[in-house]
């Protein structure tokens, strides 16, 4: 049983962490939290199942198509839901516009794909062993994203430009960085990460439209606990969340497990609103 808790817990924790990173990447580019992060995860699973299982597209092509779809959705989010509201003085409109977009995507999926969860294709023809592909795929995806982002931020110009925008948009603009294109690129990147999370986690979570609200919430917990914009914190918090959730599932069963997770989340957040590793408020006046 312990083995099951650990393998499932870490794997699902990696999925949550990836969604958390999706939130973070969008946040760094725009100072906005988007409700579409969870939807991206859902789309990764649904589209993966659609392309590979239903339409018979070969594995690699299907995978790339899913990532491309994620990037596209990310860009749409930026253009439709984020850019227009950044200009307005009312900061809170972004919550509404991204919520609307996320709902649109979820409902469309529910109607076209169906409200029932459908199986995700088995990607590699390896028999189920102790360490099944549904476990190591999310972990692999998480590691790849962390390393990839690290390399991006440290060694490429684009990555450093992303960091600049995240630090201080005005200074970055003053330096002549194309803020808008960089933001779009950030959202596209976030879209890829979110879709990857859903794809890698497809076998565990199944292709289900209802994953969107689940991932929206559980993907946000690592952000809230790990600190806004803090990717490493998100990974640690995500894995811990996954382990805690699985342990609760095994010990007390599904219903009480979600109550337990939520209670812990709320208590931690009320005690430390900026997260366990976060920074404090900025100048308001």
């Amino acid at each position, binding site marked *: *049983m312990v083995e*099951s808790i650990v393998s*499932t817990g870490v794997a699902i924790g990696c999925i949550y962490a990836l969604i958390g990173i999706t939130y973070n990447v969008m946040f760094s580019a725009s100072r906005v939290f988007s409700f579409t992060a969870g939807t991206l995860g859902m789309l990764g699973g649904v589209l993966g199942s659609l392309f590979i299982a239903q339409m018979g597209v070969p594995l690699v092509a299907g995978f790339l198509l899913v990532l491309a779809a994620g990037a596209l959705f990310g860009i749409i989010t930026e253009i439709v839901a984020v850019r227009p509201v950044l200009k307005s003085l009312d900061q809170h409109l972004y919550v509404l516009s991204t919520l609307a977009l996320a709902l649109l995507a979820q409902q469309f999926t529910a109607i076209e794909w*169906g*409200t*029932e*969860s*459908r*199986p995700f294709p*088995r990607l590699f023809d390896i028999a*189920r062993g102790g360490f099944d592909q549904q476990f190591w795929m999310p972990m692999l995806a998480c590691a790849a994203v962390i390393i990839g982002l690290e390399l991006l931020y440290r060694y490429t110009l684009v990555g450093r430009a992303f960091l600049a925008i995240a630090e201080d948009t005005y200074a970055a603009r003053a330096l002549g960085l194309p803020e808008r294109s960089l933001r779009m690129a950030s959202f596209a990147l976030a879209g890829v990460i979110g879709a990857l999370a859903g794809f890698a986690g497809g076998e*565990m*979570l*199944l292709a*289900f439209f*209802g994953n969107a609200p689940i991932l929206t919430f559980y993907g946000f917990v690592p952000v809230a606990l790990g600190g806004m914009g803090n990717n490493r914190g998100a990974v640690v918090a995500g894995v811990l969340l996954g382990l805690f959730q*699985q342990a609760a*599932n*095994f010990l007390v*069963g*599904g*219903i009480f497990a979600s109550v337990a997770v939520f209670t812990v989340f709320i208590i931690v957040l009320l005690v430390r609103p900026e997260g366990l590793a976060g920074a404090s408020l900025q100048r308001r006046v």
Partner: protein
Amino acid sequence: MSITRRQALGSAGAAIAASSLAKPAIAANEPIRVGYLPALTGPSSSTGIGINRGIQLAVQEINAAGGINGRQIELITRDTQSDPTKAVNGAAELSHGQNVSVVFGPVNSGESLAVVPLLARTNTPQVHPCWVDTLTDPQKYPMCFRNAPTNQQIGAAANRYVVEVLKRKKVAVISDTTGYGTASVNAYVPMLQAKSAEVVYQGNVDAANPDLKPELLRMQSAGAEAIMPWSVNAGFLSRIINTRGNMGWDVPIVGQTTLGSGQTKALLEKPEYWAKVYPNNFRNVCYGAGGKLPERTAAFVDRLKNAKIDMGDTLLWWIALGYDSPRMIAEAMKAVGPEPQKIVSYLNKLKEFPGVYGDITFSPDQHNGYPDEEVVMVEANSLKDGAFNLAPGYSS
């Protein structure tokens, strides 16, 4: 329930008001409106989809043969989407706005729990195939009839099979969180205990939960020797079967009829996982000795094949139930006309209506029409054209 004068005046007033807004006179060749509340979409739609095929065929046949005394049947469908709130809305619309003579459905217990009292208040006759015991009550709901078995009948057959035939004493009972699932677990656990079986695990799990391994591991460590799932959600059931297979755990799965449906089969990871799965079903739609269906059923299957109706992805008895229901209602209306009270009194005297899937009998005190002895257990992986062989060791 006693009807107060005010209620009677009120409903009479509403009826007058409503009918004054409807067409002035109901001419002799106006269609008879039958309300229909299936769940055609949503998580509990397997039953509704199967039943729907039967109903559509039956209504077509009846209308093609001249309808009811020259009047065509108009089936007014409101998809409940497996949602009790939408079921209530739909039922309200059917009874108030559409002026139907009788309502068939809902087909899921969770939805019926809300709709049955509502239709009772609007004095609309109702026939439904839901299993939860409390959904008929000749005193509280005098116009409501059930042409399917009750949970008691189903549970008796399944529990008997597990305890007496398979001789398993330690049982795990699992269902989802719908009204049907919860009511079933609540009903079956005491029934098992009365048979001196030990219920080592009982739980309601969210049907959308993708990972049922924790639950099965808990069952296993509690020493369960049989798993009894009660849910109409094909995804949920298939996940139980798949997890059992992945764990390599050799215990029989005995339970809800949907375990055997084509939808469940389609979601299995390996076909061999379907071994040792025994859903409940009905004698009339099963292959008897010699691998043959009863005559009436065989003729029905031929009719279905001629009409090109798919049986492979659903259950024959759902289609049969759907087929029987409008025919039963039509017979009542042919005899006494579409007046609600007359339909009810006809049904109250119905004796062995020859349905494909079962002979239905009602009386003023008994609104559960399905005979006990027709409920049987079958072997899931013997599925052919929606019908099955009886389960091994099952005395016929």
